[in-house]
């Protein structure tokens, strides 16, 4: 189990040489204990200390990187079962399956869709992360050809090479070894051969077995064969099986420190019914999958899944607030409307989204109300006429705009007179109560 800072300190050279970038060995030890530093930063640490610290500091779920370069995806390293305890660390990867039995046109179309899947949402770039190429044709030559052609068309996209035939695996992995693919996979019948291929080409290895007993035994065996970068598949395919297996795997790894299942999980959700597939993928996102393999990547489905992943992997400990300032939405001119709301992050996201939606360039004054929504802030005396007046005066906005009209949320219509009293020369206009009324409201003013 994890060591304390002081226990780690005892194993360090205690020279305070600063080569690690920290002022003292103790400071470095504290950072190590919090997993905010890596032992590699210490050039003088003994092999013995490395061994002890390495074992103790290994995260309960092994970190694995899928692919290489800019679009590589980090997986594993999770530390909790529930997101309110601590942030879920590495968002799961979405992979789409391409069967090598498909026509070249079909394959090219999916690859194009993957390359064009990127969407920007609340400042994050989200995309289909990987391609899962399966050897459905059972033809090793065809498989190698398809893998090569996908790799040349989409050189940056991480690949999962899916076959249980070692000969087909060897040729395909060899062709794209520089891209650090995941080879899926090893089962009880081919473990030695697959482990050899993974070792030879430094690929990570997907390991599959029916049930968690067999899976634990197989990961131990493969680790014994010298492959440590493992991704696991319990064989669960129905929603019920996925929930059970993924829950037990995460619990065993986190709560029992059970190393044989301390690896990222690959979850398969392919279904003919695309709507149902989306919901089973949502189960994968919420319940502990590191890779979710999809059969198709329609844009509507991607958007829902990307958004869910972003929601679930948001840091729950970051205060739900945005910075107090006057935000420009679109390209407002000095004549553009000025609206005001509070700094609860959701309020901000919804209001700014609706203003964007309206296509009317605007200034949105976001006032610090300690992260409360409009009505709550008003009720708590944080969104009052005098505080609003003070914020507007101190913001210097009067020098930027050519009008003196402030649009307030409809829920605080009661404040309009009092704000006008405290902001001489200003006209206060009552906007809609709900943000979804903003587009119509703003368009009618423009």
């Amino acid at each position, binding site marked *: 189990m994890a060591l304390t800072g002081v226990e780690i300190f005892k194993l360090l050279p205690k020279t305070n040489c600063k080569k690690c970038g920290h002022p003292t060995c103790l400071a470095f030890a504290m950072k190590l204990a919090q997993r905010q530093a890596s032992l590699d930063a210490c050039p003088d640490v003994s092999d013995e200390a490395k061994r002890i610290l390495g074992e103790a500091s290994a995260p309960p779920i092994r970190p694995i990187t899928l692919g290489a370069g800019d679009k590589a995806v980090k997986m594993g390293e999770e530390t909790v079962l529930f997101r309110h305890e601590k942030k879920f660390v590495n968002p799961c990867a979405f992979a789409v399956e391409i069967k090598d039995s498909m026509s070249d046109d079909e394959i090219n179309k999916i690859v194009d869709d993957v390359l064009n899947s990127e969407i920007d949402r609340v400042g994050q770039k989200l995309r289909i992360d990987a391609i899962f190429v399966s050897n459905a044709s059972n033809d090793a030559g065809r498989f190698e050809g398809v893998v090569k052609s996908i790799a040349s068309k989409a050189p940056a996209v991480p690949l999962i090479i899916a076959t249980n035939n070692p000969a087909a695996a060897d040729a395909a992995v060899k062709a794209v070894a520089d891209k650090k693919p995941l080879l899926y996979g090893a089962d009880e019948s081919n473990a030695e051969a697959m482990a050899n291929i993974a070792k030879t080409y430094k690929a990570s290895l997907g390991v599959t077995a029916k049930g968690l007993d067999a899976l634990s035994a197989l990961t131990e065996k493969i680790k014994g064969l010298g492959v440590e970068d493992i991704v696991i598949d319990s064989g669960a395919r129905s929603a019920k099986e996925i929930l059970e297996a993924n829950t037990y795997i995460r619990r*065993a790894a986190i709560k029992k420190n059970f190393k044989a299942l301390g690896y990222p999980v690959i979850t398969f959700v392919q279904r003919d019914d695309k709507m149902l597939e989306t919901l089973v993928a*949502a189960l994968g996102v919420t319940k502990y999958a590191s890779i979710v393999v999809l059969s198709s990547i329609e844009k509507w489905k*991607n958007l829902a899944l990307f958004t869910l992943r972003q929601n679930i992997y948001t840091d729950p400990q970051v205060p739900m607030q945005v910075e107090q300032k006057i935000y420009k939405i679109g390209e407002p001119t000095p004549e553009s409307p000025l609206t005001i709301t509070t700094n609860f992050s959701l309020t901000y996201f919804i209001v700014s989204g609706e203003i964007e939606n309206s296509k009317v360039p605007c200034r949105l004054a976001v006032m610090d109300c300690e992260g409360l929504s409009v009505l709550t802030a008003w009720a708590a005396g944080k969104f009052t006429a005098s505080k609003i007046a003070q914020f507007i005066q101190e913001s210097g906005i009067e020098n930027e705009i050519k009008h003196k009209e402030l649009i307030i949320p409809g829920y605080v219509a009661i404040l309009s007179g009092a704000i006008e009293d405290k902001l001489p020369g200003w006209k206060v206009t009552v906007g809609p109560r709900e943000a979804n009324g903003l587009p119509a409201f703003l368009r009618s003013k423009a």
Partner: protein
Amino acid sequence: MAFAIPKETFSGKVFEVTIGTDRTAVFGGENVLPFHAFEGSVPHRPVIAYEVQDIVPDDWPETVKKVYESVSGDPVTWAKYCQDTLNAKAIALRLLSTHPDRENRSPEDAAKTVKDVLAAINVPLIILGSNHVEKDSSVLVAVSEAAKDKNCIIGKAQEGNYKTIAAAAMANNHKLIAMSELDINLSKQLNILITQMGFDKEKLITDPMCSALGYGLEYTYSVMERIRLAALTQNDATMQPPMLADVGMYVWKIKETQASESELPLWGSLAERGITWEATTAASLLMSGAELLIMRHPEAVKAVEKFIDELM
């Protein structure tokens, strides 16, 4: 290293709630996390109620509005359509017209609507106000009386109006939704206040406030998870009522369910996007502990029912 199944069992249990009198619906009753039947008992599937309004839903996006085009002019026809054609297991009637900013209809009008709907259907009815704190306290009292002994769910009681609403629900033998805003402590406090009035805790339904995918879903998700963990691990009776996710009204007002594909080509087909948005929001909240869902689009409901089939 041999694998030992890390099973977890709990001392606490979610209350089982039965609604309706003719055809009834039952939800709750589990002593494990959502759908964790592999380590405990999950006696009932979650119940999905179809939302019906007492006025034409002009502000609903096209995708969902057009489904009800021929029936939404009248709540009785609409409710019957949900029950008979869509096989709804429960109906949630939202008395939106009583809102002072809408038609401001009287509590008596609302009571009549409720009576008419009750006379036309035999599945359980959830009766919702317009979410106007003052107005609801008169409307929900009148409709509780109008629906006396029909074992409905009345909602939503909030901090500002729970006394009158809870008293009316109690006097007329109904279940009650207690809603607070995305905070486990507020939720607990409201449940305590209501039970201190003598309201049976086993007749409560907790609404920790829903949010749509992309618009705060993670807050609802985590508050629900925390409430459920408190119910199970701490055997905290004030946290043991089943939970409601009022999905439809939060989903069908956001941009993702309204913006056309021509406007935002990267977002794909609007119809499927809207339906997926409602279904994905619902499915995620099922995973965090909701047992009662209120939804709008029949295709979204169908998808979620199939998802539940796979989980049970």
